[in-house]
């Protein structure tokens, strides 16, 4: 089909899922400036929800919808913590949410405990069909991100990310926007998680741990916090390089760690920031406010 091998199709599918996942965090951390070190928990909630629903005989659509709703609801609840704690405290709280999620999943026999869930139904669309489904959702996510960024809500997020207190002073309902960011971002993570579950068809608690949370944060940060296109490029590259080149897979974490460190140390604006440095005039018109470094 399309002259693509099965291997290439699975690469593109993984890439599409990573892009959706990274953009979901970009909504919370990039647009609204609320750092999260436990985003993989929502990816996990989506994956588990859809897996359990479809294993109980529900169609794929219900599974995905359930994943989105469930992850979004839990995300909304976690969003309330962002009203209580800020900055570093929020980073540690969300990290705690991530560990709590894994801890509960490990002990909960209904979802397989440590063993995880196997035999998750496939999409029933075949590999190429599923790839198109993922790409479709990916395009929708990108369009949604771009639209949101230029909407009234996007500007409000921007103001909150810049300075929460000032945003409040000028009359923005900061709490409501923060909750909205968490609910939308985590719901999208749920979508990505559901797609992941039907793609690999086996999940266990370890698939959604701290390393995954950091990996997705790496995609957002390396792409350039808040920049939609930067994040897409970073997510696509970082998800596919380790699958593509076996040598990199061995040293995947060293690469992620090193890149995260080097990016922050030398170019905190990420790829988008680098692009702006190299092409200052071309992008100055539309990119002002793209990155908040």
């Amino acid at each position: 089909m399309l002259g693509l091998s099965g291997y290439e199709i699975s690469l593109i599918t993984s890439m599409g899922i990573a892009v959706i996942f990274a953009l979901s965090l970009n909504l919370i951390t990039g647009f609204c400036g609320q750092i999260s070190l436990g985003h993989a928990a929502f990816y996990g909630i989506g994956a588990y929800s859809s897996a359990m629903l479809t294993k109980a005989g529900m169609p794929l659509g219900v599974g995905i919808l359930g994943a989105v709703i469930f992850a979004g609801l839990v995300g909304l609840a976690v969003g309330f913590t962002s009203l209580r704690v800020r900055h570093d405290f929020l980073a540690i709280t969300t990290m705690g949410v991530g560990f709590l999620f894994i801890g509960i999943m490990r002990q909960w026999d209904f979802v397989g405990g440590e063993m995880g869930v196997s035999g998750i139904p496939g999409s029933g669309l075949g590999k190429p069909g599923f790839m198109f489904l993922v790409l479709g959702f990916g395009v929708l996510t990108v369009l949604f991100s771009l639209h949101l960024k230029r909407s009234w809500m996007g500007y409000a997020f921007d103001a909150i990310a810049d300075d929460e207190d000032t945003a409040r002073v000028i009359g923005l309902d900061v709490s409501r926007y923060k909750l909205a960011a968490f609910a939308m971002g985590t719901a999208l993570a749920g979508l990505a998680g559901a797609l992941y579950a039907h793609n690999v068809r086996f999940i266990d608690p370890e698939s959604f741990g701290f390393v995954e949370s950091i990996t997705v944060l790496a995609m957002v940060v390396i792409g350039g916090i808040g920049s939609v296109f930067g994040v897409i490029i970073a997510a696509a590259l970082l998800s596919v390089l380790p699958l593509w080149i076996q040598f990199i897979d061995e040293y995947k974490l060293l690469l992620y760690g090193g890149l995260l460190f080097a990016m922050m140390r030398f170019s905190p604006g990420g790829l988008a920031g680098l692009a702006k440095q190299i092409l200052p005039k071309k992008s100055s018109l539309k990119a002002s406010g793209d990155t908040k470094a």
Partner: protein
Amino acid sequence: MLYVELLAQGLVQGSIYALVAVGLTLVYGLLRILHVAHAGLFTLGGYIGVLVTNATGSLLLALVVSMLVVGLLGMAIYRLCYQPILDKPPYVALIASIGLFIAMEEIYRIAFGPYGISYENPPLQDVVHIFGITLRLGEVAVGIGTLVLIGALALFASKTRFGTVWRATVTDPEMAESFGVDIIKVRYLNFFIGSALAAVAGVMVALLNNLVEPTMGSVPSYKALAIIVLGGLGDVRGTLLAALALGVIEAYGTIYLGNYLDRDAIAFAFLILVLMVRPQGLFGRA
């Protein structure tokens, strides 16, 4: 007797958390950075401890070498990694630190192998009976060692001139600087002492588990972050209390809640619960 035994186990675990967390909270007080890579230094401390002990047969020498090397490396991390990005938004240093930590773990894995290394003749494994409870000599050493080190630190901080300067700088860096304090010197000292204490914790954990592995820093790292948040970020006394409290809560929690939550989840459930009620931490000032 179970209660007392659990309390003792909890306090031993809490002592180790305390040694790791003190350095972390001091760095936070000075620089407002969540120094995640601190746990990478803890792991390195464990490796050096085991390697030197196996080579020379002396645990004490290993402890000293480990503290020195790790302390110096801590200073280097400050100079090379944090100093250039201090004026950036806080998430920059946090993410850089996480990246550094992950890279450090990977370097240990590549250098020393994924399965870890052990003592050839594990020291301090004898069993002692105190007040009717049974502890290993190593656990007693952890408790006493922590007391001595934290006591020495408290004396240094309260009785010496440099200690006073140090405390003043941690409390309010800008004010201290305006009084003529060389805050760069204080930062170096701060990183040296904090990292050396983490190295001691690393050697001790290596002793208790008789194993050093690349990822042994992960759990203490996240726990220590939780602890300094509970202690009210930058507050040394609060951090020490929070460390011991968390050790004890985990010890009891694993017995009574173990069927629902594992040890780490209990710690973080406690963290989230406390933060929702007191966003400034258990012992932090509002």
